[in-house]
């Protein structure tokens, strides 16, 4: 217990204290100037940070989409049919693809006059053609779509595993009582796995709030301008590229606070679930 606490202290508490400490300074390490809480004030009047935070919130829209799509597919492939295992494996592939490969592929697909635009043109849907990554109006939609595409496989696997754990007798009993496929899904299976669904939703919300850096870095680099910036990317640009450790640390504290709210909700859900079981 003791060593574990020490390790936890070093890894988490020390890091957090350091970040919080740096958030009160301006300048680079080695030439820091104490500025108190002015970095926090500066953050919330900085259009780039406000926009980055707004983008993180916009990405929350991907959560219900990923959840509904992956749950729907998990329910469909829950029934045993030929090749179901292969199908589950295939839908999981995007989730394990390296971010750089994914970024490269989608850059070619989504760039102006790229593969998607070419396809739309061939389908006589030219009115839908856009510079998906180069237009500030479309770039977050494009990034959101890539997130949905990649997280979808993870959702299917999580939900499939949960569905497999539902006792077969319950479903059998419902069928004997005359329940059709749709009723079995709606009244038996979904309620049986609702704790997993809650867990997945919160996990996805945490991901889009604090773990989307890779998508932004490989697809747009935060551009055009700052239009696809998110909080993590703001931290990277200021902390690493510009050497402004203070404002980057202040942004990290804000991001941690927001993520903590979601983590608290998650813990509350878990505690409630444990109480229900007991």
């Amino acid at each position, binding site marked *: 217990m003791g060593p574990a606490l020490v390790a936890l202290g070093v890894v988490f508490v020390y890091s957090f204290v350091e970040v919080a400490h740096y958030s009160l300074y301006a300048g680079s390490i*080695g030439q820091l100037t104490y500025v108190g809480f002015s970095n926090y004030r500066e953050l919330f009047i900085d*259009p780039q940070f406000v926009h980055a935070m707004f983008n993180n919130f916009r990405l929350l829209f991907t959560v219900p989409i990923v959840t509904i799509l992956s749950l729907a597919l998990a329910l469909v492939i829950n029934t045993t049919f030929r090749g179901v295992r292969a199908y589950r494996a295939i839908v999981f592939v995007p989730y394990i693809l390296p971010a750089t490969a994914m970024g490269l592929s989608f850059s070619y697909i989504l760039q102006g*006059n790229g593969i998607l635009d070419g396809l739309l043109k061939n389908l006589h849907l030219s009115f839908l053609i856009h510079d998906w990554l180069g237009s500030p109006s479309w770039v977050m939609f494009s990034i959101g779509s890539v997130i949905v595409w990649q997280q979808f496989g993870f959702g299917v696997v999580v939900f499939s595993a949960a569905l497999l754990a539902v006792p077969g007798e319950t479903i059998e009993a419902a069928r004997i009582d005359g329940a059709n496929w749709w009723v079995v899904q709606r009244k038996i299976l979904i309620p049986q796995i609702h704790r997993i669904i809650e867990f997945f939703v919160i996990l996805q919300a945490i991901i889009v709030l604090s773990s989307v850096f890779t998508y932004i870095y490989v697809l747009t680099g935060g551009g055009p301008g700052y239009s696809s910036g998110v909080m993590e990317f703001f931290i990277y640009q200021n902390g690493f*590229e*510009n*050497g402004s450790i203070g*404002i980057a640390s202040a942004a990290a504290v804000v991001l941690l606070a927001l993520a903590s709210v979601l983590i608290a909700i998650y813990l509350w859900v878990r505690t409630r679930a444990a109480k229900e079981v007991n």
Partner: protein
Amino acid sequence: MNWKVLATEASTSTRSKSMAGRRVAHRLIAMFCVASLGLAMAVAPVAGSASAAAKKTNITYWFWGEGDIPGITKWMQQRIVTYQTLNPGVSITLVPQSDSTIIPSFALAAQNKSGPDIDTQWATLPVLLPALQGGVTPISKYVKSSETSKWLNTSENEYKGALYAMPLYVIGVPLVWNKKLFKQAGLDPNKAPTTWGEFLADCAALKAHGITPLGMGNKDGDFGAWMFAIYEKQALNSISQLTEGVANKGNDQAKLLASLTKMYTMFQGLMSKGYINSNVASLDFAQGWQLFPQGKAAMSFTTDGNALAWAKTIGQANIGVGEPPIWGTGTLAKTYDATQSSSEFITSWSPNKKADAKFLAWLHTPSNMVALNKETGAFPADSRFPKSNITNSLAKTLDGFDTAGTSIWLENFIPPSIDTSADRPAGQLITSGGTAASAVALWKQQLQLWQSQQPTQFNQFKTWAGASS
């Protein structure tokens, strides 16, 4: 194993315990002697090499150049092998850097005063700002002026009479045009657009014939940064107009922002007229450049190296090279756009500064410079490089642009963090349909943020700008 055998023998002997004991003792002594001899023999060469290692000068070199000159890392590796053969007491470890690590890695090293002995940074402020913070030793302290005077474009890294870094090559940014496509649009294929009016007229004619006039990529912000470097410069009468604006001296920032507004309005005009490929915002710089050799764009701003490579792709007879057309009316509009781009320097914490300097100066020996040109096509930044080695007519023209008169690459004169946070994103705003006003507002906001977030660097910049004006 032997100990076990000896122990077993000793315990199982039924004859004389003392004899057995003596035998064991003899064997132990014999083994000890053999082991000692073996150990002595084994240690002797190690100790020898350890003392040799102690005498050996180790140099760690964080090198960048591949982004400008493909093949230069290989050239450098070969030079190091040769240098180590000529100087057996020197060991050089080359650590290639990428575009994204070159600045942050050195910033971290400078904070800890450890890392490279020799480092590469982009010219001027990426060298001089760390120098002002005490991270760079002037190379002029260790290399004689009779040598440094032969190096080209050294003014890019000079401050208060000291030279801080060494150039390796000079890179120019010409306008290239496809003669076939010009002909197709009814234009004179042998005439470069030199004035802005001619450039716009050529663009209009090309567009009217369904040809994309200018092919570029700006996903990474490089094209925007080039427009700033080439065309904002043309609006200025001196570099201090820029640096004093960045340093927020008096009313100079307002003047700088006003001139940026004009430049971005011109840039926005090119976009709105459709003179730049429509997907410029989602192609990175290298991807945008590919439009030219693929025959999908009639003109491009590029590097000497690319111009020469493209001449091989589309045929030298089909490519024209010229200086970028003149848009601005400032005194600097007459200067060309060549730079040493990257610069090599000795870090202040290097324990072997003399050895570092000796190696760097050795890179400028004529045979190395000739090899650089031969192996990579780069134009060496050394006046001793025999021009007779440049035999290709196109290369001769490009070298002429680079060395004929004064050259300024304006991007070198803004702090790297302003380049990253204002210059590049502002250009991206323009190529993604934004207005000049929004681009300039971004500059203003980022200059203020830099001033408040980097007070020490801001003051150092002000000192440098004041001394350099």
